[in-house]
């Protein structure tokens, strides 16, 4: 099999190569260009003009997020818009290459989906099994009803040990819980150790992507943030220099931290194991250096047995990065000698979501980000425009479960092209759930946007070809970078299932109006 072994040197790319080809990180032992981890097949170099980074959606309490407004500002920054779009499309292309390299890909997706559905529909049993196994391994197990509970529990553990500093790896769950902000108020110093997440922490921004948290920033933005916060040379925007600066300034925190915390990719019920997948080695350091280690686990992360890792590990990194596996896959099962190990099992709305007939399968999500990378709205509006912990297609169906009013407009930030569903490694019917949310929100009158036309958000992104062409410099490149919106169109399939009018040529706006009316009349 020729799975992802051949770099696509010949493929056109808008921006030129940023590093000399003889760089050790970019060339493998036999001289070929490397593109594993989240690296691009050819490193992208944004043009050298500086441009202020567009900021995310304006958050005003519980008032509905205006994603369209934030998206317009993102598109008004052509260098950022083009670099972001191209970067994520590259990940999407690598995902395709990796997926096509495995003959059983579709079978793996089906298996992963079935294993998750089975586990979720027996979640009480598997959680009890996981807890018992963990306790038998010497791990302390805690249960948190919500984010506030989680934060209080972790604070209690830290206080018991007199811990004042904590290094952590990237965890979307702790973002959900507002963990960092809470701990700041309690006088506990939290240090993010993932490069992208650290950039975001230092810039006082949320992550914009579940896998590449600073994907919306150019190296100039990073140079500015690091110069301001770490004292690096403001004129040196070399990615190697910037990454090395983060390594050197973060390591003392790792060595001296009183505690370490990681998220969890998979929690194995039969063995009580927590599995983390990273490229940087930072989760592994967070769990292996401090003498107190904590793992925060969303209860939907359970899988029954170790053998099932043989399914999920094969699809996770391929879907996320196009790599066969991440650089590090750590399996934490018991404490090191002389140390303490804690699990915090967090519900935060998941048990309630299990009871939502149309939406419970969103709990299958393994946070690979493939749906975000393939989504034309996401790629062209940036993750921060969603104003929520989870951006992109998966965010559209998860966020409203946290706050129906605040995120009431998000399910309208979609073209409904179905590409998200097609790339999802655990077969979540994302675009159908987006549509179902529109119905729910309309019926519950959660949509003040209704009067103004529901497609405002997606429309803002997709109706500006001029701005977009300006962003990437050449009109014909637009087709190259954004082909799937036109090509990858499953509206027919979707329509058949839902007894839709057979109208592939109908404009989406018109199509949507028709169907919204149908849904609303029910």
């Amino acid at each position: 099999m020729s799975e992802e072994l051949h770099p696509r040197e010949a493929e056109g790319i808008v921006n030129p190569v940023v590093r000399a080809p003889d760089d050790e990180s970019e060339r493998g032992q036999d001289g070929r260009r490397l593109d594993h981890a989240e690296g691009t097949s050819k490193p992208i170099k944004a043009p050298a003009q500086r441009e202020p980074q567009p900021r995310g959606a304006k958050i005003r309490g519980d008032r509905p997020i205006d994603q369209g407004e934030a998206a317009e500002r993102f598109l008004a920054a052509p260098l950022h818009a083009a670099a972001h779009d191209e970067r994520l499309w590259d990940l999407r292309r690598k995902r395709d290459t990796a997926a096509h390299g495995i003959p059983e890909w579709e079978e793996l997706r089906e298996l992963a989906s079935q294993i998750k559905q089975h586990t979720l529909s027996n979640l009480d049993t598997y959680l009890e099994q996981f807890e018992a196994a963990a306790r038998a391994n010497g791990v302390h197990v805690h249960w948190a009803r919500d984010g506030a509970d989680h934060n209080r529990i972790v604070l209690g553990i830290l206080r018991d040990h007199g811990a004042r500093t904590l290094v952590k790896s990237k965890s979307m769950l702790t973002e959900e819980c507002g963990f960092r902000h809470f701990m700041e108020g309690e006088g506990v110093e939290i240090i993010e150790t993932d490069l992208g997440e650290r950039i975001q922490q230092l810039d006082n921004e949320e992550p914009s992507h579940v896998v590449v948290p600073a994907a919306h920033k150019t190296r100039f933005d990073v140079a500015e943030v690091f110069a301001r916060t770490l004292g690096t040379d403001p004129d040196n925007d070399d990615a190697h220099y910037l990454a090395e600066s983060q390594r050197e300034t973060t390591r003392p925190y790792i060595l001296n931290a009183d505690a370490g915390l990681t998220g969890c990719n998979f929690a194995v019920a039969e063995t009580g194991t927590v599995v983390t997948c990273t490229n940087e080695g930072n989760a592994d350091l967070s769990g292996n250096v401090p003498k107190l280690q904590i793992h925060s686990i969303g209860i939907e992360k359970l899988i029954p047995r170790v053998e099932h890792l043989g399914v999920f590990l094969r699809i996770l990194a391929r879907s996320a990065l196009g790599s066969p596996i991440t650089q590090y896959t750590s399996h934490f099962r018991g404490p090191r000698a002389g140390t303490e190990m804690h699990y915090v099992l967090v519900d935060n709305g998941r048990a309630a979501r299990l009871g939502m007939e149309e939406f419970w399968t969103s709990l299958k999500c393994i946070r690979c980000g493939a749906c975000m990378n393939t989504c034309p709205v996401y790629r062209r509006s940036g993750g921060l425009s969603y104003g929520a912990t989870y951006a992109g297609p998966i965010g559209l169906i998860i966020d409203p479960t946290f706050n129906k009013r605040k995120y009431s407009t998000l399910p309208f930030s979609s073209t409904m092209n179905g590409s998200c569903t097609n790339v999802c490694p655990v077969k979540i019917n994302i675009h159908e759930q987006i549509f179902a949310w529109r119905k729910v929100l309309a019926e519950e009158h959660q949509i003040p946007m209704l009067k103004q036309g529901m497609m405002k958000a997606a429309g803002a992104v997709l109706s500006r070809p001029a701005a977009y062409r300006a962003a990437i410099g050449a009109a014909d490149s637009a087709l190259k970078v954004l082909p799937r919106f036109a090509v990858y169109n499953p509206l027919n399939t979707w329509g058949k299932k839902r007894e839709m009018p057979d109208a592939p040529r109908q404009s989406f706006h018109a199509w949507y109006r028709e169907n919204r009316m149908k849904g609303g009349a029910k």
Partner: protein
Amino acid sequence: MSARDAILAEIRKNRPAGEHPLPAVPLFTPLVGDDLVAEFGERLKRMGGRIAEPGADDVFAGVRERLDGARVVASAVPELAGNRDLTAVARPRDVDDVDVAVVRAVFGIAETGSVLFTQDQLVVNAVAYLAQHLVVLLDPADILPNVQAAYLRPEFGQAAYAVLHTGPSATADIEGVLIHGAQGVRSLTVILCPRGGAAARG
């Protein structure tokens, strides 16, 4: 009601309708050919790792330059002495000054170019990340065809800590520029070296 009981009760109340049996996972045909050693090396290189044959007189010939240039070498293998005794390390942070760590892998995976360690091979888990460079001895006979085969091994149910390393630490969080040595080791070199060195030395 405790948070635990409340969560479990809500899960039971909200159990999704329908039958969702646990599927049997078939053993898929490995993606790799019969030459597991070659396939392993090819995959490892694609993930940024390096592969070396042992020299005729010197197992470490392929990394001799790196070892000779190192101030602190921590060896967890009998084939090399090193100058930092991992069994005497008091705290994980104390291995921060290690230039090169040398460890033996439990097994390798041809599909991905990965190697497995547990706490028994690493002695101090943190050394596999805090060292600047990692040198791994792998017996060619210990290479499994794929990830699925790996997860049928007993180590995952027994070890307090088990980890698959696939090449060195990497990041591309800044504009997709690939960089080795994010928070962990800057390089990982696998030397194909049969087990038995320990036995030979008694």
